[in-house]
């Protein structure tokens, strides 16, 4: 060992020991029992209904971008819930542990969480919400929607896509494991240097934090590469750059940010690992280390990351507003420019996260002005949405309500962001709950846009709409929670309340903290409303079936194919004529025209390799955390071997024949006609239909089926 570790270590289990299982923790132990019982129940149900085969074939080994996207979104929603529970714990502690007379239980002096435990909760909350809720939710939507919007059959690299998902899932699993085995970091989601150094955090918590982040960074980078290549190379004929749906532009700019900034995080964390594992001194206070270097490196990624998550959300809003305003997006070119301006400037502002570091006034001035520049394109976007509604015909569907909520939150977040951007103001509210309120306003823009998108695109993916009544009820409850939690939080910021307090020394703040606790209750009600929404919608799914154009006023290409989208997306690769292709075809009366003839299409095979590698990255992360060296080596070797084997085998794909395709299309059309009569008879010689192979090469000796065969690493052709 190159570093001194308290506690034991042995070659077989590393730092792992029975004492690391918090079976005596009054919060975690019951939770653990509940999780185990829940797990057993799920396994039993799947077995009872004989769904293992289905699960394996349709989901676990799939490379279909829509299913992968759905799984990303499920991970995102589950983690959003976990993060919400963490948030609830934080709020409860602060509402309780106020003043010297407040009581304490479970070994805490005040409230019910010891500072160390409380630190873990908010660290997990932040990390989860940004990297395991917002990011997967957005990546999921980009995965589902971008290929359909550009008329592609799948992503450029379907297998890589699956790999990105399973590595993200591994990251989620690793952070969940920290609940029950060992503990988690208490150094804040961004990591306070040098608290994460071994002298101040001798346990495994920081290691969990670090390797979780590494896995998520890796998964997101892989996804980013894939989306970029897809957008650049896989557009349907006629889909010129300035016909790209705005969500695609948003995804493009976001993923450029991701690809250029995530490496900075990985390097920074690699250096933290060197400190913690090799006894290096990159970020220690002494011996030549520089802790502010870490803070710089982290935010060089961290700030672009916040724009990586907000840009797709802006894209979603830009899709929703026109559809429910029944007119095109105002200032399309401006929107594109604004997205890229935001992306560009986002690399130049990182220092605004630590104006109080004590940099000179020149440095702070530069970053202050650079930060305010971001406000310009952001402001432009808001104006453009407003003018999209101007002269429109607005219907306030649930999706539109969520988008409007996002818009108002963005106004508040922008106002407070512009306050924080000025050092003379920042010195007073940096590290106060005012900052927390600022970025929650902003991150809630994402949450609102995501829920709007869930409602907006749900019918496209599943073929039926979500229940409007419950969607609106959820919206209003959620908004009530938002107001009750974040208005008092802004007030507390002006009262000088700093962030991350596990004991609140000022009793004047108590009433506000109690109102916030009330807000949490309202939020909880909205979570229930969401479950009811899902239940009611699935129960009434037959009644809520939709045709291709679920909203009747849709604009972009994805609304031309069937709902639910078939696995091949478009039977014939569409030829794009206009910026808002669906609206254009509707206006020209050819929305329902079917292709003259079908041609064979080439699709990628399923593969379990991505799942295996994902599982192995979890093992690797776990082994690194607990310093089980043999297991690190074994899992690393296994990953490399699997990658090599898979690379040599390649993926020849398979063919869906024209006849088979025609049969499936007829069925889908018949189904849709029952719903809305929108899809017409196949019209021979209708819209220009251009067949194009989805993959880079074509072969004639491929299996011809309509269900993707699975390709294990050992299978042979």
């Amino acid at each position, binding site marked *: 060992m190159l570093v001194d570790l308290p506690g034991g270590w042995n070659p077989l289990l590393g730092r792992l020991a029975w004492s690391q299982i918090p079976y005596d923790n009054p919060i975690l132990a019951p939770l653990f029992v509940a999780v185990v019982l829940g797990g057993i129940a799920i396994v039993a149900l799947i077995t009872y209904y004989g769904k293992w085969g289905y699960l394996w074939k349709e989901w676990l080994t799939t490379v279909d971008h829509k299913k992968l996207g759905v799984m990303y979104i499920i991970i995102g929603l589950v983690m959003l819930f976990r993060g919400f529970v963490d948030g609830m714990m934080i709020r409860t502690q602060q509402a309780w542990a106020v003043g010297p007379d407040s009581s304490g239980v479970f*070994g805490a*002096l005040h409230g019910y969480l010891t*500072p*160390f435990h409380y*630190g873990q909760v908010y660290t997990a909350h932040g990390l989860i919400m940004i990297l395991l809720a917002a990011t997967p939710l957005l990546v999921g939507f980009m995965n589902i929607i971008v290929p359909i919007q550009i008329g592609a059959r799948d992503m450029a690299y379907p297998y890589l896509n699956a790999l990105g998902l399973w590595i993200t899932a591994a990251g989620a699993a690793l952070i969940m494991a920290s609940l029950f085995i060992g503990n988690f970091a*208490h150094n804040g989601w961004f990591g306070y240097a040098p*608290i994460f150094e071994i*002298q*101040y955090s001798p*346990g495994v918590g920081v290691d969990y934090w670090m390797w979780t982040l590494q896995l998520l960074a890796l998964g997101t980078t892989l996804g980013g590469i894939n989306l970029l290549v897809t957008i650049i190379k896989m557009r349907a004929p006629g889909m010129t750059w300035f016909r790209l749906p705005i969500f695609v532009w948003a995804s493009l700019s976001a993923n450029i940010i991701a690809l250029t900034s995530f490496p900075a995080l990985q390097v920074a964390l690699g250096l933290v690992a060197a400190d913690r594992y090799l006894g290096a*001194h990159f970020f220690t*206070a*002494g*011996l030549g280390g520089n*802790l502010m270097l870490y803070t710089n490196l982290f935010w060089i990624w961290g700030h672009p990351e916040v724009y990586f998550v907000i840009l797709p959300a802006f894209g979603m809003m830009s899709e929703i507003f026109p559809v429910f305003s*029944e*007119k*095109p*997006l*105002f200032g399309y070119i401006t929107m594109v420019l604004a997205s890229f301006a935001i992306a560009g400037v986002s690399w130049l502002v990182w220092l605004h996260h630590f104006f*109080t570091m*004590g940099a000179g*006034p020149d440095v702070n001035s530069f970053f202050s002005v650079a930060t*305010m520049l971001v406000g*310009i394109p952001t*402001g432009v976007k808001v*104006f453009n949405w407003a*003018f999209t*509604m101007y*002269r*429109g*015909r*607005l219907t306030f569907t649930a999706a539109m309500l969520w988008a409007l909520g996002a818009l108002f939150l963005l*106004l508040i977040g*922008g*106002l407070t962001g512009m*306050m924080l*951007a*000025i*050092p*003379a103001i*920042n*010195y*007073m*509210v940096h*590290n106060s709950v005012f900052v927390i309120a600022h970025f929650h306003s902003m991150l809630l823009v994402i949450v609102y846009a995501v829920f709007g998108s869930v409602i907006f695109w749900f019918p496209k993916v599943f073929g039926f709409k979500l229940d409007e009544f419950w969607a*609106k009820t959820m919206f*209003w409850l959620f908004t009530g929670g938002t*107001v009750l939690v974040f*208005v008092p939080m802004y*007030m507390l*910021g*002006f*009262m*000088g309340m*700093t*962030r991350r307090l*596990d*004991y609140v020394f000022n009793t004047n*703040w108590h009433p506000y903290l109690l109102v916030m606790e009330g807000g949490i209750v309202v939020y909880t009600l909205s979570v229930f409303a969401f479950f009811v929404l899902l239940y009611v919608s699935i129960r009434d799914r037959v009644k809520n079936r939709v045709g291709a154009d679920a909203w009747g006023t849709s604009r972009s290409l994805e609304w031309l194919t069937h709902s639910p989208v078939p696995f091949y997306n478009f039977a014939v690769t569409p030829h794009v004529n206009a910026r808002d292709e669906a609206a254009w075809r509707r206006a020209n009366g050819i929305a329902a025209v079917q292709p003259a003839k079908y041609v064979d299409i080439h699709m990628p095979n399923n593969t379990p390799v991505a799942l295996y590698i994902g599982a192995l990255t979890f093992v690797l992360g776990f082994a690194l955390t607990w310093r089980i060296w043999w297991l690190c080596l074994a899992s690393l070797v296994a990953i490399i071997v699997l990658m090599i084997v898979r690379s040599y085998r390649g993926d020849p794909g398979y063919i869906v024949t024209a006849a088979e395709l025609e049969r499936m299309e007829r069925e889908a059309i018949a189904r849709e006609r029952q719903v809305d009569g929108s899809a017409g008879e196949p019209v021979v010689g209708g819209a220009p239909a251009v067949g194009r192979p989805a993959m880079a090469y074509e072969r004639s000796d491929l299996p011809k089926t309509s269900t993707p065969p699975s390709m294990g690493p050992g299978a042979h052709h």
Partner: protein
Amino acid sequence: MYMNKVWRLAAPWMALLVGLWSSQADAGIFWIFDPKGVMADTNLKYMIIDVLVMGAIVGITALLVVWFMWRYHKGKNRGSYHPEWSHSNAIEVVVWGIPIVAVGFLAYFAVKGTFELNPYNPTVITKNMTPQSQRVDVDVIATDWQWLFVYPQYHMAVANELVLPVDTPAFFRLTSTSVTSGFFIPQLVGMIDVMPGMRTKNALYTTHVGEYQGICSDYAGAGTSWMTFKTKIVPQAEFTQWVQQVKASPKIMTEASFDRYAEPYINVHHRVAYFSQVPDGLFDHVMMEVMDGKTWPIPPMMTENMVAYMAKQSAEHRD
């Protein structure tokens, strides 16, 4: 109607919020709006400028959106519908122009304010000073989790309480023994990071006698929440008296006793200690030691079980 129900449910909560706000707004608990020193005053001045400019833009935009929502509501036939309208050069110029002008305007104040409040040379304070002006210097050493305020002019130190004479600029040098903490007195001076192995500065000046809350604004580990200190601004005569009082304290601080003092300690009982003597250059000594790799590690049990640690802390008679 659906919306009526929403309003009926929301109204009492909103009333509660407004009630809270108005019942306490004048009680001086909004520290940021109630500055008592030149630095904090200046912070507030810039906040007002910024909020006026941005608030006007944001407010007008919000009203515009609400108005569009009302006017173009489908089926209400209030505004005319232009299904293809999506571009207007005039509007584009305005939507880019307004934010550009606003940011240009605010950028001027941002730079100006940054120099005025530059912690190394806050011109709002220093512009009124001559080399002969009276001043108090304080060396701030943050440990896990206490503050040591060294008064080099008086060769004395005080733990966890800051006392300063009114009408006299005070200049701080700050460093930390272990992790990064933040020095913050909301009504007097904004935050500055206090980092191990490094030295930052800040200053304050006030004409208001009183007692103000000091906070550790950066998360520094388990004891952060209790790492608060009272800041007493006293008349000059009272300050001189207080210095005498500290100088009379039997406790002294040496480099060796500092080593022990800097061990992790959670100041739950708001202990204040006076040290009548302090070696010259303790601040630089601590900084050099930290740069040479000295740390005061946290006992593992402290991070696991606070109550047990508190028992240990009292058993060691450190309370």
